[in-house]
């Protein structure tokens, strides 16, 4: 039993085993430690914590794959862990209220139930008591004051955190039903999989996200990195993360945005500085120019694909769909609806609705041969 809470706190964000080599090195994760004040909070809130721990231990035993679980109890970035600390504090207080009031209720219904031996006289009628009532008004007021002050402190700490000049800036644009990531200073445009450098106390490299929407409301939520912030058309928002551990963090759109809201998944790759630099370098290249797939490229450039997609170095400059310049550097397609394999690409181009019913890319009515050539071309886009 003693080890149980640790199950919650030390779950490391594992890299995605199905992704390409570049990310394999992340596998040697150092499970991060319970920080000192976490531990204190646990002791402080032993009762409810125990309750939750039991529940979670049970969950861990059944879980089909904890590596993909974006639990808010496994924070890996300052905003998320500040929130978790606050959560434990609030949980302790509300847990305490629950135990006291629930206990009184239980006691009342056990102690004062009507017994067989009772005569049928009515019990003493009590209409109220000013002192008692005053007490249970004042005590909650005090509790509210404490809760409010603690909360306000964290709100200001997270929301109004000073922005270091070295911060990486990424513009996130929500689309029905995929994410567009732009790195304005680096000249990179990509989709659905966000790459950010790891941050540490010695070398703080937070990432600031500027959140926009191209159509309806969405919400950016990678629970282990930060709370969610909405992407609202005509209402730009900002948020920030400073992941402390490399690896893959999953999340998804958390504001209902239409048919495929469920499949608007999100992946955040936290890279070492070297990996990140390499990734940036690669993303800045124009699309691959491989003569052996000219047929596929020709189909791409002569079909409507170019209306919606951009591939740097070609005539394709559409912005309605994801930028495909470095499609092969992504592990998934269509916002996580499928893994990025030639087979899935084929299926996707043949009939996007089959993989993701309601996706806003039309089936292009191409024959199998054309699609095969297209896929061959797309798979060269590293």
């Amino acid at each position, binding site marked *: 039993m003693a080890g149980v809470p640790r199950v919650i706190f030390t779950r490391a964000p594992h890299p995605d085993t199905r992704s390409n080599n570049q990310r394999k090195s992340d596998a040697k994760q150092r499970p991060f430690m319970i920080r000192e004040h976490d531990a204190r909070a646990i002791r402080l809130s032993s009762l409810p914590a125990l309750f939750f721990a039991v*529940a979670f231990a049970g*969950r861990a035993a059944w879980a*089909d794959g904890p590596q*993909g*679980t974006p*639990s*808010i109890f496994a924070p890996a970035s300052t905003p*998320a862990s*500040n*929130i978790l600390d*606050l*959560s434990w504090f*609030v949980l302790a207080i*509300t847990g305490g209220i*629950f135990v006291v*009031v629930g206990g*009184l*209720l239980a006691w*009342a*219904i056990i102690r*004062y*139930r*009507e017994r067989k031996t*009772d005569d049928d006289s*009515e*019990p*003493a009628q*009590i*209409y*109220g*008591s000013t002192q008692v*009532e005053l007490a*249970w*008004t004042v005590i909650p*007021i005090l509790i*509210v004051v404490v809760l409010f002050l603690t*909360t306000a402190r964290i709100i*200001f700490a997270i*929301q*109004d955190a000073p922005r270091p000049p070295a911060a990486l800036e990424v513009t996130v644009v929500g689309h029905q039903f995929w994410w567009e990531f732009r790195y304005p200073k680096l000249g990179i445009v990509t989709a659905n999989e966000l790459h950010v450098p790891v941050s540490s106390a010695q070398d703080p490299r937070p990432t600031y996200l500027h959140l926009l929407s191209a159509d*309806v*409301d969405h*919400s950016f*939520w990678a*629970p282990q990195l930060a*709370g*969610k912030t*909405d992407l*609202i*058309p*005509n209402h730009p928002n900002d948020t920030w993360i400073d992941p402390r551990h490399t690896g893959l963090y999953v*999340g*998804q759109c*958390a504001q*209902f945005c*239409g*048919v495929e809201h*469920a499949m608007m998944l999100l992946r955040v790759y936290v890279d070492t500085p070297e990996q990140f630099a390499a990734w940036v370098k690669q993303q800045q290249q124009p699309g691959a120019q491989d003569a052996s797939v000219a047929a596929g490229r020709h189909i791409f450039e002569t079909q409507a694909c170019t209306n919606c997609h951009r591939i740097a170095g070609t005539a394709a400059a559409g912005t309605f769909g994801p930028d495909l310049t470095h499609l092969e550097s992504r592990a998934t397609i269509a916002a996580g609806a499928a893994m990025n394999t030639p087979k899935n690409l084929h299926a996707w181009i043949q009939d996007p609705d089959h993989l993701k*019913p*309601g996706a806003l890319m039309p089936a292009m009515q191409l024959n199998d041969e054309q699609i095969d050539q297209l896929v061959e071309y797309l798979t060269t886009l590293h």
Partner: protein
Amino acid sequence: MADQTLPIAGTLDVTPRRHSRAMVLEWLHGWVVTVDHKRLGILYVVYSIFFLLVAGAEALAIRIQLAWPNNHFLSPELYNEMFTMHGTTMVFLVGMPILFGIGNYLVPLMIGARDMAFPRLNAFSFWMTAFGGLLIYYSFIGGFGLYGMGAAPDVGWWAYAPLTAKAFSPGHATDYWALALIVSGFGTLGAAINIIATTLSMRCRGMSLLRMPLFVWLMLVTSGLTLITITPLTAAQIMLTIDRYLGGHFFDTQAGGSAVVWMHFFWIFGHPEVYVLVLPAFGIASEIIPVFSRKAIFGYPAMVAASVGIAFVSLGVWAHHMFTVGMTSVGNAFFVLSTMLVGIPTGIKIFNWVATLWGGKIRFRVPMLFCIAFIFQFLIAGLTGIMLSVAPWDWQLHNSYFVIAHFHYVLVGAIIFNIFAAIYYWYPKVTGKMLSETLGRWHFWLFFIGFHVTFDTMHFVGFLGMPRSIYTYAPDRGWSHLNLVISIGGMIQGIAVLIFAWNLVRSYLRGKEAGNDPWDAWTLEWAVPSPPPVYNFAADPTVYSRRPLWDLKHPEDPDWKYEG
């Protein structure tokens, strides 16, 4: 007022005796044209129970779809329609009408009046509400959407702009949604005005405001709150309709309109709305708990003040549904504080109920079982509400299953439980027959267990990052087993509800005779026969305390000696 049992003027006949066609038609006609508050109350309740089954069936469809990852039971479109219709139906066609129905039936009886202040307005309100319900369900047939066939609204019950704009929601489903809510909104407004006028102007002699039963007080506060919360929704729906039909730009983000303004308008309605639902439920508990503890309610004046306080504070907390839309830190902090403040008057209510139990002789009949479960569940729900009100934590929990768990804990664990309690408690008055206690206990325990299996578990999937409104999820997220458990709980609740429905029908046909006052209770409605005659009271009653029947039963120790 010398006479005590308040003589009868013939009982209300609610069933056709002979089944000739003419008789049935006449009986039906009688119900359709009725302006009697009791019949209208029954109509409201029956209407709502029907929609409870419908929306419950929709919930079960949702649960079947989510029981396994990558399930294909419902298409994404259908799933989105299901949860939108489930939420909309439960709030507007189940919760509000059933509570207004119970209020309609009981308020005049409890204050010793012969009918509502405006009987015809009352009928009008009911039929408006009913028409709204039909309108929204008609969209399944008539609201052809993107796919050229029937399509119900699929934008969520909060219907955030600009998803509701013509560009993103073509077809008519969203129009049906907006129009239905405008129409039923007028019905609700009429009902609220009527209840206010009735409580203020129709009380019998001696029924001063501070002698009204708490249920009446809470209906009064609810109605007052309704006046100023339903109307902003109506206003917002009118704007939406202007956008959709006349090409307006209120919420058109392409033309400078604001999506956030819709959110504010919706939640200025939506938040007080949840208190509109819960306050009558509080009223029900405040009637039942004293009777089955055999004690007067503890701290009556404080209960009244707390209710008014809750209604008042609830007007200033709406943006706690919007902590993630990017308000300023000061704005966020303000709404944190105002939201937490609601806990204080609500706490007073919980403490007073517990104090009413304290020192009583508690009788665990079915209505009381539901009420005790209510206190317990509402305590937890309120505390999870406090967790959500902690803005930074809400940045994590918002739109996750934790929120779904929180509000079902209140909407089901508090409101539906109390509605069941109310039906078990007043069914004898309405029909003259007792509901079966055995079936009632089955119903209670199955529902209680099903409820906890479902909604306790939801909190945890929320912690594990599962967002709401998703029609499916991948197996590697680690949510699969918990979702299966949740779905099983839903099925158990379904069985319980079916037992309940069966109990209603069976007991009506062969239940035990109830008599006037089966629970040995204290408010005026128990002084008249069951079912009550058309004009309720043969002679206008006079009361001298909050518990007129207590005074009657205990002339040696009447209440008015003690009430200040």
